[in-house]
């Protein structure tokens, strides 16, 4: 796709206008003016008070409801509690609003907060990796957004500013990422990490040189292209619908609802009784009776049941589609110099930034349905920000669902954008199959499992029980052969690729300069079959459900690969850490 500017659908129209005006002279000077504005302590936007109260009350929702209910019925205690809860929230919010200031002091971004206990957090600007935004409907109506400032340590944002106006956000972004004219230095995380020792400045200079060589793909592009934003990928709604059809999201959500239903204090015995009671079901169906053909024949009943299942299936798929559209509507991936930026969402808009250097691991997932529709999902893993409870919407979108759905034909181009200078032509990869004995080894396992099944079957029901094992044997053998054929390993000049999976095909990449350790493992069974496994550890927080852990390789081949990976990883220096 040719480089073009973001269309009007960019979520921050106001900011876009501002930036557009200043774009021609946008450089260090723009950064300087933004910086100057931020030298003075800044307050949050006044609407913060409202949003803060809402979030406080949300965390105390149950006691608040009880207290209000009790107060409404004239209970003195309830009234007292209600005042306490709402008053407390109001006081805390006001204290926070009037004491929280953010500004830039020297080269640090400083947030001070607190009345009795004063907390000062200062983050070196160079270490700031992400400025993520979350905007729900209310935020959008008021033209504000919640801002999260993250560094690489990031299990939690370094600072959360709830809420700022677009003008404030753009000023902040200018001050932090303003030096985009020289992206290698300004936004390069590599310059930050080396600086942990006393040789900070010297190391800084050297590491930026290293990474600019490494990212020669960027250097090859014109400097102007590096400083402007470029739309890399946009997901149209029809593709989201396809992805929703292909995914099992609906089933997952249904499962969650079911779990909630059973946990939320309903008498589970009563429910179970109802579910097993024929009358309850016929009551449920009765209103539909006129629309259903009367059936007494077996075929009719079977047909009805099949129809019902089909309806349930489509309902689940529709839930899946709705989820995809809610979450990823207008999903855009843009590039700003060395940073990738994602924005998406129907009601709650999310915008997240990922510096390209922070990508540790890339994985392409294709479920069965997706393969039918020639679609795929691309996931990336970054260092730090390991999710968990404190994971916010912005990091969920950027780390878990980097590109939820793309056309198969687009994969190579997109991967090239993620790691410039790497040739992604999959047909050029020299794929190595696992050891030729693998199918036999896996078949032996399926034979043992079937034999066990037959033995149990015979013990239960002589002699017909043996049929169970006889049925599973060809099935399991077929799966074993398919599985052994699906596993492939390839080495390119920038890293390794591993692909596996029968129904959901997963293809993952790890890069030499991102490999932390390399291991070679051999179980006693492996030794019997003259096999070994090679695995690669990266700093990726949760490697996209697909570790580079290649089993069943021929032992000699694995040993050779281990040696070569060892020296290749040592030769390719990481651009950070």
């Amino acid at each position: 796709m040719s480089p073009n500017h973001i269309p009007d659908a960019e979520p921050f129209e106001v900011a876009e206008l501002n930036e557009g005006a200043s774009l021609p002279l946008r450089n260090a000077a723009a950064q300087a003016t933004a910086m100057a504005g931020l030298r003075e302590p800044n307050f949050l936007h006044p609407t913060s008070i409202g949003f803060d109260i809402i979030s406080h009350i949300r965390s105390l929702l149950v006691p608040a409801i009880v207290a209000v209910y009790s107060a409404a019925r004239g209970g003195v205690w309830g009234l007292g509690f209600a005042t306490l809860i709402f008053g407390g929230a109001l006081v805390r919010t006001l204290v926070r609003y009037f004491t929280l200031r953010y500004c830039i002091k020297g080269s640090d971004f400083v947030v001070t907060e607190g009345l009795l206990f004063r907390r000062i957090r200062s983050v070196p600007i160079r270490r700031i990796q992400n400025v993520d935004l979350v905007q729900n409907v209310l935020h959008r109506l008021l033209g504000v957004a919640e801002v999260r400032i993250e560094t690489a340590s990031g299990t939690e944002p370094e600072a959360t500013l709830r809420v700022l106006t677009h003008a404030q956000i753009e000023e902040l972004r200018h001050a932090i990422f303003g030096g985009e004219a020289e992206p290698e230095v300004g936004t390069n995380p590599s310059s930050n990490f080396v600086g942990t020792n006393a040789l900070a400045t010297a190391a800084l200079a050297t590491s930026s040189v290293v990474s600019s060589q490494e990212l020669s793909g960027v250097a090859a592009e014109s400097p102007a292209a590096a400083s402007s934003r470029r739309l890399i990928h946009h997901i149209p709604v029809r593709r989201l619908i396809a992805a929703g059809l292909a995914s099992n999201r609906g089933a997952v959500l249904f499962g969650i609802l079911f779990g909630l239903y059973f946990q939320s204090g309903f008498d589970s015995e009563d429910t179970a009784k109802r579910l097993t009671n024929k009358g309850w079901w016929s009551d449920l169906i009765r209103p539909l009776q006129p629309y259903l053909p009367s059936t007494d024949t077996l075929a009719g009943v079977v047909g009805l049941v099949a129809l019902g299942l089909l309806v349930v299936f489509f309902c689940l798929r529709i839930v899946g589609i709705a989820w995809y559209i809610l979450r990823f509507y207008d999903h855009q991936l843009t590039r700003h110099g060395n940073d990738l930026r994602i924005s998406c969402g129907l009601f709650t808009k999310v915008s997240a930034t990922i510096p390209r250097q922070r990508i540790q691991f890339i994985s392409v997932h294709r479920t069965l349905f997706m393969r039918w529709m020639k679609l795929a999902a691309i996931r990336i893993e970054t260092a730090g920000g390991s999710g968990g409870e404190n994971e916010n919407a912005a990091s969920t979108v950027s780390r878990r669902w980097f590109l939820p759905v793309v056309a198969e034909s687009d994969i190579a181009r997109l991967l090239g954008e993620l790691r410039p200078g790497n040739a992604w032509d999959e047909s050029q990869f020299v794929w190595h199959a696992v050891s030729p004995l693998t199918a036999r080894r896996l078949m032996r396992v399926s034979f043992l499992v079937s034999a066990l099944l037959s033995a149990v079957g015979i013990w239960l029901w002589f002699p017909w029980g043996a049929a169970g094992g006889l049925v599973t044997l060809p099935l399991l053998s077929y799966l074993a052969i398919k599985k052994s054929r699906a596993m492939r390993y390839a080495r390119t000049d920038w890293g390794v690729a591993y692909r596996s999976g029968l129904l959901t095909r997963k293809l993952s990449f790890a890069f030499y300069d991102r490999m932390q350790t390399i291991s070679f493992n051999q179980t006693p069974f492996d030794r019997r079959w003259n096999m070994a496994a090679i695995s690669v550890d990266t700093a990726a927080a949760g490697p996209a459900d697909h570790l580079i852990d290649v089993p069943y390789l021929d032992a000699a081949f694995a040993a050779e690969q281990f040696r070569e990976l060892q020296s290749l990883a040592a030769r390719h220096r990481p651009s950070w850490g």
Partner: protein
Amino acid sequence: MQWPYIRIVGDELARKHGKAGRLVLANILPKTPAIQHSRSLLPERHLLDDGSTTAETTEAYQTLAPQSIAFEQRTGYVGALVLLGITVVISTPMAVAFAWRNWWIWGALLVVWLLLGSLFLWHAHVWPRIVYRATRWRLDETGMEILRGVWWKHRIAIPVARVQHVDVSQGPIQRMFDLATLTIHTAGTKNASIELSGLEHAQALLLRDRLIEQKDSLDVT
């Protein structure tokens, strides 16, 4: 049982390598006549059965400190005694409840104790030697490599540039044997920290310095 002997071995090693330890440093580097403790004990099958058991590789790898066997054995004996104690405490009341009047139950109990006891003793006395033989390490210009495992064999390579920091720790019993544990931390997730215990203390310290030196030299150039 042999405390004075252990002390002598420790003293001897201290005298031999000293705190200055330049001598030991020489041993860390490959291609020099390494300590190669008990190399004659190295059986061919120790290395991976993959054709990489060439003279070159056997030369380069080093073993742990020999007194680590004694250390493992000593702690193993204590563990074996505890396990045997637990067995006795559990099995005696069971036997009493089952058939204390029958003379053979006591015989059977004795046999079980003897069998289990000899198994524990074997595990405490012989197993550390087998583990010792299967554990090797090597430091060269690419980084650290560790081989271990008797049944489940693992080989891990840590490039020097990926070393985040290195710890050397020493427990009270390890101190008696002049041993230490080297822990290498990386930014990885699955293998975020790699431990190697049973190194001589001075050698562990030198290894640590050497790893950091190598890493720093990479960062400067």
